[in-house]
Structure formats: structure tokens, C-alpha cells
């Protein structure tokens, strides 16, 4: 394989990233603007006079042709100006800034819990040498994973807050106890899927030819496990994760709504309900960018983890 220069590779990657963002922006713009419903009427309600609705449309430039609105939006976005929410009439950038922290923390904590449950624990059990525990973990996680996050969220609130009273029902970001349920609900479904994939990969790879060869050559068991079993097994769950990243984004919509968390997911839900186009398109862009960055990051992780995808080994 001919190796291209590092600068060219970086340029390619950056170019691809910009192209991805532009695609997200364009597609979300088209989707949002062609949705049924007149944002002016949805926001102003049934009682507003035709004159007021017309003045609102004029102020928000909803009447200009789609191509011109798209052009304006593109230019403004390039300048870093996201404009103003139609319904809340506040700058989109301020709204996103106020709400992003909570969502980032929610996703990060859920991600950590998911990684611990699906990869951390099985490794721990493998080191301790207890396959029974791995199987038990797998069963328990599968049990939770049958319920989608919105059902699980509702049941969890009812059980742990309503009946048992262990955690507060009212979310307060400054109380650590409040984070337990939302993080659990958001992470449990992907954790179960991942644990399953990882578990199978572990089992398959512990009997592979290279493992048998290494054992025959007399390498110690722990070396064989770290180098031949674990590294190879990690690539499968990572690949699943790259595909499943979007799950976290949509998951926040339900979880934030059920638990009453002031985050971006809830903001997006409100924007959809009102067809607040001026807020919805930038939000799609924010979510899209976050998902792309995470995917690219994981993709690099995948290359580092799997010896087969490293060119120097070839």
C-alpha cells in the first residue's frame, strides 16, 4: 500500500469533516423547513390576528424563498451567528450555552457507566477467572435492555422515587443523588448491547489460533490475555459503539423529558413541537457535530486498539 504524506491525510480528514458538517446543515435545514406547519401560527396561537402573524413572518423572514433563507442561514452560520429562537425570542447561542453543560455531563457520565458495565466488569471477571459472573452480568443487563429508555425511565422513577423513596423525584443538578437514575436509564440499553458483543468476542478470541500458538510457545497466561485476546476483542464493541453513538443523542430527548432536566434534548423537543426552525436547525448542527466528533474519536480509538487495522503490522 502506497503511503500518503501526513499533511495530506490531515487535510483529507479536515475536508471530510467540513463536508460532513455542511451535509448535516443542509439536510437538517431542508427537513426542518419542509415539515408541515406554519411556525408563526404555532408560536402565536389561534387567537392572534392575521396582521400580527404577517408581521411576525416578516420579522423572521419566513416569507422569502427557501433558497434565500438557506443562503442567509449559511452566511450567518459561517460568521458564527446562530440568530434568535422564534418562540423564546432569545439568542440561540445563549440558549445552547445555558443548556449544553448539563447534557454533556449526562452523556459523559452515562458513557462512563456504560463502558464500565459492558467492558470494565467483563475484563475484571476475566482476570479473576470467573466466567460464571460474566454470564450472570450478561443476563442481568439483557433483562434491563428489553425495555426502551423511555419505558425504563418511567418505571424507574415510579419504583425508586415513588415507592421506595431512595432518590429524589425532582431533578437538581447540584445533588449527586439526582444523577443516578437518569445516568442509569440512559446507559443501560447500550451497555447491554455492548456487553453482549464484547462477551462473545472474548469467548471467540480466547480459542483463536494465535492464542493457541502463543500458549504453545509458553507465553504467560496474562500476556496472552492482554495482547492476544483483549486487544482483538475490543474492536467489536468499539465498532458497535460508533454506530450506536446516535442512540445517546436521541436518548437524552426522552431522559431529559422524563426527569425534567434542563438540557439540549428538552430544548430540541420544544423546538420540534413549535416548529421553531430558527432554533431547530442550529440544534441539529450542534448534535450532528457532537456525534461526528465522537465517531471520529472512536474510529481512531478503534484503529489503535485493533492490531489488525494497524498498517505497520501488515
Amino acid at each position, binding site marked *: 500500500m502506497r503511503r500518503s504524506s501526513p499533511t495530506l491525510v490531515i487535510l483529507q480528514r479536515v475536508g471530510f469533516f467540513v463536508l460532513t458538517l455542511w451535509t448535516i446543515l443542509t439536510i437538517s435545514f431542508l427537513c426542518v423547513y419542509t415539515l408541515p406547519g406554519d411556525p408563526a401560527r404555532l408560536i*402565536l396561537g389561534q387567537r392572534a390576528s392575521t396582521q400580527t402573524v404577517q408581521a411576525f413572518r416578516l420579522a423572521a423572514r419566513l416569507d422569502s424563498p427557501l433558497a434565500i433563507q438557506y443562503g442567509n442561514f449559511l452566511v450567518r452560520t459561517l460568521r458564527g451567528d446562530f440568530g434568535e429562537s422564534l418562540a423564546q425570542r432569545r439568542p440561540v447561542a445563549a440558549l445552547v450555552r*445555558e443548556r449544553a453543560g448539563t447534557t454533556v455531563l449526562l452523556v459523559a457520565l452515562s458513557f462512563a457507566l456504560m463502558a464500565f458495565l459492558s467492558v470494565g466488569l467483563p475484563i475484571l471477571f476475566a482476570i479473576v477467572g470467573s466466567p460464571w459472573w460474566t454470564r450472570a452480568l450478561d443476563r442481568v443487563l439483557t433483562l434491563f435492555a428489553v425495555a426502551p429508555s423511555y419505558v425504563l425511565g418511567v418505571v424507574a422513577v415510579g419504583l425508586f422515587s415513588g415507592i421506595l423513596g431512595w432518590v429524589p*423525584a425532582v431533578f437538581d443538578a447540584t445533588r449527586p443523588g439526582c444523577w443516578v437514575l437518569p445516568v442509569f436509564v440512559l446507559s443501560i440499553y447500550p451497555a447491554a448491547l455492548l456487553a453482549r458483543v464484547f462477551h462473545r468476542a472474548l469467548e471467540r478470541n480466547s480459542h483463536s489460533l494465535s492464542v493457541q500458538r502463543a500458549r504453545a510457545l509458553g507465553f504467560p497466561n496474562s500476556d496472552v490475555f492482554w495482547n492476544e485476546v483483549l486487544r482483538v476483542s475490543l474492536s467489536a464493541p468499539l465498532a458497535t459503539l460508533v454506530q450506536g453513538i446516535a442512540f445517546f443523542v436521541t436518548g437524552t430527548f426522552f431522559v431529559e423529558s422524563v426527569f425534567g432536566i434542563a438540557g439540549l434534548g428538552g*430544548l430540541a423537543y420544544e423546538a420540534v413541537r413549535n416548529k421553531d426552525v430558527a432554533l431547530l436547525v442550529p440544534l441539529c448542527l450542534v448534535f450532528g457535530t457532537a456525534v461526528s466528533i465522537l465517531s471520529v474519536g472512536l474510529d481512531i480509538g478503534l484503529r489503535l486498539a485493533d492490531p489488525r487495522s494497524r498498517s505497520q503490522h501488515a
Partner: protein
Amino acid sequence: MTILLSNRRLFLVCLVLLSVGCSRNTQPPSTGPQLSLMYNTEEQATEKTVTAQVIQSQLKEKGISVTLEPVTNAVFYDRIAKADYQAALALWYVDYDDPEGFLTDFYSKAGFRMAKYSNPTYDDLYERGLFAKTEKEKLQRFHEATALVDRQLPWIPLYSNSELFVLRKGTEGFVSNAYQYYDYRGVQKSDLRVATDVEVQSLDPALAYDLASKHIVTQSYEGLIALAPDGQLVPMLATDWRIVRDGNQIDFHLRAGVHFQGKWNHALTASDVKSSFERMLRVNSPYAYIFDQVEGVPAFKEKKAKEVSGFVASAPGVFSIRLSRPFPTMMEWLLAPAAYIVPRETSDKFDFTKESVGTGPFVLKSWDGVQARFDANGNYWAQAQQSHPLPRTLSLRVMKDVNTQFAAFRQGELDILNIPLALFNEFLEADGSVRPSSEYSYREVKLNNLKFITFNMQKAPYGRDEALRRRVSESLNRSAMVKQLFKGRAREATSIVPPEMFRTNR
């Protein structure tokens, strides 16, 4: 297990199964034309879905076959705007105590018009009511207009529901009225926590249109007048008012000693009232129509005038509204939060989520998109008139999920719960009586709202045929509906205007 049963999805599934099971037994042949009923699944989803299913099964028994069309909020209003529907299940609520609020949809020059009803006789009655010389004459004309619509049935009224509150000990001083204004000034408990079940759109009084925004805005801001729980117009920032010049002018005397909260901490004057009303018109408020009969407003809206000549600040303590013709409904329209008063310094783009600047009992400390925290206003003008101090803090939180609301109330994290339909089983017996408790009390407040079926009057066969619509109306068993859905905590509606709104004792 009770909590699982109150889960709205399970509840719905049970109801669907029940209605399917019941309708199997009696299936008369379908006679009338098929009726297609659309409803909004993003607005009071449980109630809408169950009501639609009850309508479907009741009409089926009488041989009318109904197809249900659940759609999202945006699609619902889009199809109504484009007259692309046959019939829809809808909700109408108003912010002021005036029959006009229910009659506007049938006026052919109105803005939205769900039913697309058009009738010159009706238009004439409506206009004669709107521009009547006296309150009595206004109600008389509106009564005639109502009777006409009730006869022709562009809307089939179903019921008006109630709000049923559970009040923890120490919150009995809470007051609310038939138009969902919530007043916490009289609550004894010092740290009060309450909730709303819908999202908040804006904290700008001029833009507050949805119930949740109104709930928050009315804690920090006040209008010239207010509506007492008994339906009387009572003084607020105006101590009294007089209708002069043959009904062409209203003079308000402003209360002395009222100061604004926040950074513009000055006394209320007539120029604050004038600038608040002009600001409301400038920012494209949903309520911009309420001043359409005020002298000089058309010119102001078309940006031909810098100020509204009909808003007159003749002295610091006297504010007058000059009307282009007698317009008795002006007083009721001033009850809308959009007509609440902000200081004259408030710019059109002022950020109301960071601080509050009104004259009201509570000062906004923070708003994160889900929770509003307030402190008592230490300089509140009405404090001296109260028997005990205001609650020290007030927390108002958006809780969309009914299970979260229930869990929060049980855990004592919520002091007042407005019981959602899906939780009726938790607090009410099968016959609708409340389950007594030593920790809390109940209060039912009858709302002057309306749940109804609207027809698209431009669409045959139902929209074109009064007899068909009458048959639908007469086939409905409203009393069973109210018992089945609300355990009796609602009133059957036989008119499009709740009869309470025709009181003449004002």
C-alpha cells in the same frame, strides 16, 4: 403496582382493549357517512386519546362509524389552517372572563377560524355585541350569537373540566380562578414548591400566551385590574376606573406607593403603563389585537406614528384609554398577561429570563429552562393588606411526566399538585369522591374552558349538513363521558360558551 397502572400507556392499552371488548357485543349496521376525527397527541395526550376513543365507541353504538386520526401538534394546526380535515377534537380556553373569547372563531373576519364558519347574521350579532354601549347589551347580543351557533353546530360542545388540586398542609391559602391564574400570595408555608406540566415558551409578559408562561409571569408582574375567584373585576395596579365620554374613554386611577422590582426600582406612573402597552404592540405579541379599538393603534402598527395617541398619561397617577368607538370588552381584555405593566425603561429585547422587573409579589432569582426560583418581594405594595407574610421562596418547575409529579408529591418535594387525569385513580374513589388524608386537602376549581368537536364547515358531508351534525351531537352521551373520564369532575357542555360567563352582576 398502582404506579404501573397509572402509567398512561398501560392505561390507554387497557382502555382500548376494554372499548374493543365492549363494542363486540353490540354492533348495529353503520348508517351515516364515515366520520374522520383528528386530534393532537402533543397536547393533553391522555385526555385527547381517551376522549376520542369514547366518542368512537359511543357513536358506533348509534351506527356512526368514526375513524381516528392522531397527529402531531404541527400537523394538527397545519391541517386546520389549510381546511384539510373533516372533524377535529379540540380544546379552547380563554384568558379573560368574556363570552367573546369563545365566539371569535365563528366571526368571518377573525384570524384563524378552526370551523371556517361563515354567516352574515352571526357576524352582525357578534359586532353588535362587541361594540355595544353597555355591558348588559353586550351580553344580550353575545347570547343571541351563541344560540345561533349552538343551533347550527359548527362545534359540538362536549364538556368543561375542573382542576383538582391536592394541597399539603400550610398551602390552603392558594387561590386560583376559572381561567387558570394561580395566586400564591396567601400561602402560609414559607418555602413553596409547585409544578406545571407543559413547557414554558417565554417569560416576557407581552409574549406569555401558553399556560406555563402565564403561570410564571403572573408571579412577578401585575395588570391594572384582576379577576377575583367569584368572577368580579377587582382593582390591582389601578384603584378604580370610570367609563366616560359615552363609553369612548376609560380613566384609570393608579395605586400610589407601588414600586417596580429590580434595577429600575422607581414608583409606578402612567407613563409606565403607556410604554408597556406600546411595547406589547411593537414586539408582535399574540395579544396585539386587544388594542385594535384604541385610537391611534392602526397608525402605530403601520409604523406611521411613534406613539399611540389613545394611550394618555395625563397625570402621573391617571392613565386613560381613548377608544375609537364604545367597546365594553376592553375591560376584560385588560386581564390578559400581555397587558401587564413593566417599567418604561424595558427595551423590546429585554431578557426576562435573567431577572424580573414587575410590581408582583415574587422576584425571579433564576430560570434554567425547567425551573423558576423566586424570592418574596420585600417591597410588595399589598403586603400591608395581608394577614401574614408572603412565602419566603417559590419554586416553579416544569414536570411533564405524570409519574414524576406523583413521585415528587409523595416524597414531599411538591406542595401543591394539580392532579393530572392519569393520576385520578391515586386520589379519587371510583365514584369520584376524594380519598381523605391527614396530610393534605383537596380543592376543585371549575374551569370555563371547552372541549369540543369542530367540523370543517367547508367540507361535505358533515360540514354541509346540519342534520348530520345534530345526529352526532344527539348520539353522544356526555354524562357517561364525564363519569368515565373524569369520575364526574367535569361539567357536561350543551353550549359553546360556559353559562357562567353570562353573569350580569358586574
